[in-house]
């Protein structure tokens, strides 16, 4: 049973209900907001371990909420909930430190797993994790990206790759960082590397497709994917 305080921002009552139940059964304390204004008030009133933010928020856009949070110095790690077509450019969210995306429809297990992972990466290192290990480096890198500290994050990824150069997940994450820094060639190379290492790496394939669509259309409906196992 994990614990933590989660801020659920969604305008759909049923989504809020089911998500809250899924997370509460896992021991989290869940607060809700139905609009951007309510969300901003919530962030000012309380400190959360994680924000679960739907990109479609009635008339408003989840991306604006994220930008508003960062503007006010609220560095709460954020999980973006998307549906096909709800995102035109995932890079903007990534640059705001949100690198975790879930595309609807979502099962409770998946939601719990990713929430636990994000909350966990902002907690003190678990006892079974060796400092400086490959897993630790990746975890640190993601945490630093969440905090928009991209340069130290890049160092962590380099460190991870030094340990295991054959990890598609690490190359995929490096691609994400390249994208955040607007280096699309670098991102392309890294995602390509990940696909080469594992031709069925869904996350890298999806990221590559987004790059490709952005490059050809200037927009993409593909959210960011950090991979199932990360």
């Amino acid at each position, binding site marked *: 049973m994990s614990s933590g305080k989660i801020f659920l921002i969604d305008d*759909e009552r049923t989504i809020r209900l*089911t998500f809250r139940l899924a997370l509460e059964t896992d021991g989290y304390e869940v607060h809700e907001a139905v609009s951007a204004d309510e969300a901003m008030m919530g962030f000012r009133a309380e400190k959360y371990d994680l924000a679960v933010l739907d990109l*479609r928020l009635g008339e408003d856009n989840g991306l604006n909420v994220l930008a508003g949070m960062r503007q006010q110095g609220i560095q709460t790690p954020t999980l973006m909930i998307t549906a*096909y*077509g709800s995102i035109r450019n995932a890079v903007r969210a990534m640059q705001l430190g949100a690198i975790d995306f879930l595309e609807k429809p979502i099962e*409770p297990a998946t939601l719990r797993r990713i929430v636990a992972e994000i909350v966990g990466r902002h907690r003190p290192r678990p006892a079974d994790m060796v400092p400086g290990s490959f897993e630790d480096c990746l975890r640190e890198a993601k945490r630093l990206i969440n905090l928009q500290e991209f340069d130290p994050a890049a160092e962590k990824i380099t460190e991870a790759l030094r340990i295991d150069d054959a990890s598609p997940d690490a190359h995929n994450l490096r691609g994400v960082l390249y994208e955040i820094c607007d280096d699309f060639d670098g991102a392309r190379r890294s995602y390509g590397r990940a696909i080469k290492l594992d031709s069925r790496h869904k996350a890298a*394939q999806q990221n590559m497709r987004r790059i*490709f669509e952005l490059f050809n*259309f200037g927009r993409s409906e593909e959210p960011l994917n950090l991979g199932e196992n990360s």
Partner: protein
Amino acid sequence: MLRNRILLGVAPLIILLMLVGGYAVWLFVRLGGAINTTLHENYTSIVAMRDLKEHARRIDQAFLAYHAGSATLAQTRSVLDEQAALCRNNVDAELAIITEPGERTVASRLKAQDEAFLAAAGTALAQDGNPDAGLPSTLGPLLDSASEILSINERAMTQKDHRARDTASRSTRVMLLAMAASLPLGLYFAYRLSGIVLRPIQRLTESARELGEGNLDQVLPVSSPDELGQLADAFNKMAGKLRLYRQTTSEELVHARQATEIVFAALLDPIVIFSSDGEIAYQNPASERLRKKLAGTETTLPVVPLAMKVINGGGDYLPESFDQSICVRVDDREKFLLPRVIGLRDGGAGAVVILHDITRFRLLDDVKTNLVATVSHELKTPLTSIRMAVYLLLEERIGALNPKQTELLIASRDDAERLLDLINNLLDLAKLESGAAVSERRATHPEDLVHHAADAARELVSTVGAQITVQVGPNLPPVAVSADQLGHVFSNLLSNAVKHSPPGEEIVLGARAVDSGRSVRFSVTDHGPGVPRTERERVFDKFYRLPGEPREGAGLGLAICREIVRAHEGEIGVVPAPGGRGSEFFFTLPATTPGEAPTQQRI
């Protein structure tokens, strides 16, 4: 009639000719007649007189001979008889042809003298040849008279000769005079004649020339009902017809022009026609409006360079994609114009620029894309809640379920999954059909594709107790594919094969080069019931299910496969499996040229 005219014109000449000719004939006849009759008579007289003198002398000589004793009396008698008759004949002949004045008197005297001579001769013979019976005295006057008649006639002949010569010379003079007179007359008539015939022809020629130069208002006077008149009439009719024709053609042209202008004016797409030197020859009101609106802004339409390229022989500019449209801001709104430039006579005579306003198409495109997104979101959001709720209940973390409740929830979960599959497939199909699904294509070895597909499906295949066999032919050329999408095709075909295969049967996944190495044919063969011949085309249709097939999927899988294969320029189909049991789903992909860079394709 022209013939009458010509005849009339020639008539004076003919009359002239007849007059002169008639006169000449009259002269010939007169001269010839005089010679024939008068001269002949004169000549007969002369001959008669000469003969008479001869015969008279013979008689005289006969007597002289008798006297001389060189002839008998009998001989003399016979000579006398013979010659006397001849003498009388000649005198009678002279008497019959008295022509000259005074001749008759002499002739009558001659008759008497002849009779006297012959009587004297007769007497002399009767007196036994008395030479003095008066022969010499009668002979003399006879010969004299004969000579007189002779000279009369000779004189007459000479006179007539003179007269004939006079007449001849006079005739010659008259003829010369007539000729001299008829020459100017003839010329004058010929001139008049040519005038009559040629003047209308000349007028016609001039009119025809003017007609040729475009002056259709030519009317020739129809002065006569002859051939020339008819010609003039025909000419006038022709000119009239031409006038009418020109009028109708120009009316039609005006009509066509008006219609074109109305159509151009009614068109909302700006149209500009450039002349060959790049100047604007015409623009429709839509173009004028656009130019006016752009005049104040910094926006310029790059149509002139496009037009000049076409005018300089660059070929028509016909864009194929909306991406080639020009974006301008008009009235604070974005307007997308797709320029099309078509050369007039290969650009030599200018170019037409049509700015096709595709703003609405782009909006529709956006609406369509948004519609898919909206529908997807609107369907997926409640579905997310439903699935979430069902999964949470089935976890039994918030409360225990009795078996009936569990059963119901499992049914709900299965249908929620089906619904999700359906939405995802519809979304995929919409993306594929609209061409919005884009994927990167890489040259891939078919063997890799097949092995990946087999690996991915192995688990599924083993769950139903079937087994999968890979059969790869030799010398397979690489194919340019989106691995993602091809994987989707394979998994669809393989899951279909698994669905229809009896347990324990073999599913064959094959690839071989066909079309002399220009394509690769992939196939998935099962040993199921097969597809009836009549259904083979339709199995690839949307929402199609084989008769009697359980309603498990939405019937979109094969439709998606077909869209993907078509986007890869391939073909998909189904045939009975070799051996006749089951079916073989196949698709072909064109081989990519070795070394070709990965291509980006809309699929």
